[in-house]
């Protein structure tokens, strides 16, 4: 207990260390959640300007323009200073970073598509003898069509996710235009009146159900993803001050006093484990308080752990032990602060990346998914998500918690073994 008291006193007088432990994770959780939330809002609520170059000037071009104009959150830019844009101008506007995306509809696309659709519809209806076969012209009919490419220019700064999402939306819109065209030709060939209901009545729709355990699950949102992820990141960041703490002991010479005293190294480390576990739990409570009381004040969704709090405390406690084990191992092996601090910080960032703090593990390449299975942060995040998002109980998270405890045991054993070996040599 005296060792724990000493560690607390050392921390209380180290403002830099306290900043790393409490202030930085608090700033991090607010900043990242705010950025992610406002990114979603930006994509979902404000209009995205899209440059449209219609070289076709036909039916398809105007259908695409109409669909884009109707689309929510899209601001169509098809002229500048009252003049229509060319392909080169659109490319320049995007490459200059003035716009993130431009669409160029090539010349003749309407003609080609019309001819092809008419041909196909004729052919289908001809099979059913619903149209008169015009044997006199059939031989001259076109049977091959030139492929027309719609060019999409993307700002080089636009991320892959943004590009994929925009490409999917545009492809979806083009398919709709194509279907509209096919319907129109069918209606024309069969002498039907134009019936917009044919297109508006959707037969297949989607129902989004969050597959949670139990019935009273909450709808996941960015806050529920971010809070546990960044709580864990903050907890693991104690690796840095803890590593520095141990290296300082060696550099100051206090390590010599500790090692020549009748107290075992394990007991000395015990003081650090108690102190840093308390710090992890304080950090956890602080982050939860921020998520519950500060988030609503800055326009974010409130995070309320509700009855899941005790299990979340258990996860934070066990994750804290894993982080402490890692910090002690790094501090034991490192000889200087220049080794321990950058290594600790970068290693935690790597563990966070592997653990799914930034990118969910399920969308990682297969090899990285296999590697991420060995990240203690992945075990911690899985446990938090199981509880918060999947309504899991303590029994459901037994496996990741056991892995975290095992990680703590392995890192502590390695640290004590290394120290003994170092002493013997």
């Amino acid at each position, binding site marked *: 207990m*005296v*060792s724990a*008291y*000493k560690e607390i*006193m*050392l921390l209380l*007088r*180290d403002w830099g260390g306290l900043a790393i432990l409490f202030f930085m994770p608090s700033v991090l959780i607010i900043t990242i959640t705010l950025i992610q939330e406002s990114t979603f809002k930006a994509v979902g609520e404000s209009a995205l300007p899209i440059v449209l170059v219609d070289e076709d000037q036909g039916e398809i071009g105007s259908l695409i323009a109409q669909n884009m104009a109707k689309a929510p959150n899209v601001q169509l830019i098809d002229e500048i200073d009252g003049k229509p844009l060319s392909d080169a101008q659109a490319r320049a506007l995007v490459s200059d970073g003035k716009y993130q995306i431009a669409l160029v509809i090539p010349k003749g696309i309407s003609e080609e598509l019309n001819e092809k659709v008419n041909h196909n519809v004729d052919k289908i209806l001809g099979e059913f003898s619903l149209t008169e076969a015009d044997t006199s012209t059939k031989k001259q009919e076109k049977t091959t069509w030139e492929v027309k490419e719609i060019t999409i220019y993307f700002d080089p700064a636009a991320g892959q996710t943004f590009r994929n999402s925009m490409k999917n939306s545009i492809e979806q819109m083009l398919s709709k235009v194509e279907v509209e065209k096919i319907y129109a030709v069918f209606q024309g060939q069969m002498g039907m009146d134009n019936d917009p209901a044919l297109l508006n009545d959707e037969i297949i729709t989607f129902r989004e159900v969050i597959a949670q355990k139990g019935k009273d699950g909450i709808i996941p949102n960015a806050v529920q993803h971010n809070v546990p992820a960044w709580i864990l990141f903050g907890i693991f960041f104690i690796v840095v001050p803890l590593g520095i703490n141990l290296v300082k002991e060696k550099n*100051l*010479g*206090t390590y*010599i*006093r*500790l*090692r*020549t*005293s*009748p*107290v*075992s190294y394990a007991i000395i480390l015990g003081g650090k484990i108690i102190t840093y576990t308390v710090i992890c739990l304080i950090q956890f409570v602080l982050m939860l308080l921020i998520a519950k009381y500060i988030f609503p004040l800055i326009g974010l969704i409130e995070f309320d752990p509700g009855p899941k709090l005790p299990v979340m405390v258990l996860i934070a406690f066990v994750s804290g032990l894993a982080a402490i084990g890692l910090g002690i191992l790094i501090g034991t092996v490192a000889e200087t602060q220049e080794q321990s601090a950058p290594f600790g910080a970068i290693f935690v960032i790597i563990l966070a990346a592997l653990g799914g703090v930034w990118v969910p593990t399920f969308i990682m390449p297969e090899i990285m998914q296999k590697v991420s299975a060995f990240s203690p942060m992945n075990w911690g995040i899985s446990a938090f998500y199981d509880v918060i998002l999947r309504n899991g109980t303590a029994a459901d998270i037994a496996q990741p918690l056991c892995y975290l405890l095992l990680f703590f045991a392995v890192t502590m054993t390695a640290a004590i073994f290394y120290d003994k070996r170092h*002493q*013997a*040599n």
Partner: protein
Amino acid sequence: MEEIIRVGDLSKRYAGSGRYALNKLSLSIAKNEIFGLLGPNGAGKTTLISILCGMVKPTSGELWFDSMPYRQHRRRIQQQIGVVPQEYALYPTLTATENLYYFGSLYGLRSSDLKQRIADGLERVGLSDFAKRPIKTFSGGMQRRVNILAGILHQPHVLFLDEPTVGVDVHSKEVIMKLLKELNTQGTTIIYSSHHLNEAQQFCTKIAIIDEGKIIVEGQPQQLISAVAGATTLENVFIHLTGSQLRDYA
């Protein structure tokens, strides 16, 4: 005289090193002695002290402390020794009292007894008025005095001192030497390692000069001086025995 430390055929070779830091070194230190361990850089002084303090394990050889073998009684022996490293070995952000309280508690001293010892100790070294000041605000001499106090609070039977007066002013040095002599008078055996040969000559009751991992000469300071023709100081003896060549080991 009754011996408190006995070392037999002690050898130490560090991993990756081709040479022996200690080479079959044998030594006996009597109770209540002020034993000076002198030698050029890399001679093996620090290694010997580190082994005697239980910090480093020897490659081979035997060690006894008050007739107890080190291997079997390491913790018990460590309870009876005090170590004052060359570094200040104190937490700069903690006060003098907090530092002393922590290091004293490692030896099982508790609460009121420990507090009394800290107050007495600080008084003896003239630092009572600075008890609640952080160590980082202390001068080098003040830090040295607290450094020594941290090693003697538990009243060890043997005190290991590594360069206890390096970087201190004359006044602090006088306080330190007086304190150490008092301790010795009260029954503490002192093992002292230093490059200050004049200080060692005045302070120590017995001296061993160590070179290349072996004791090359051992005896009372005056005996050693008398044994070398023309020598008037311990420094003359030292140069005579170890040569004047630089000893640089990487």
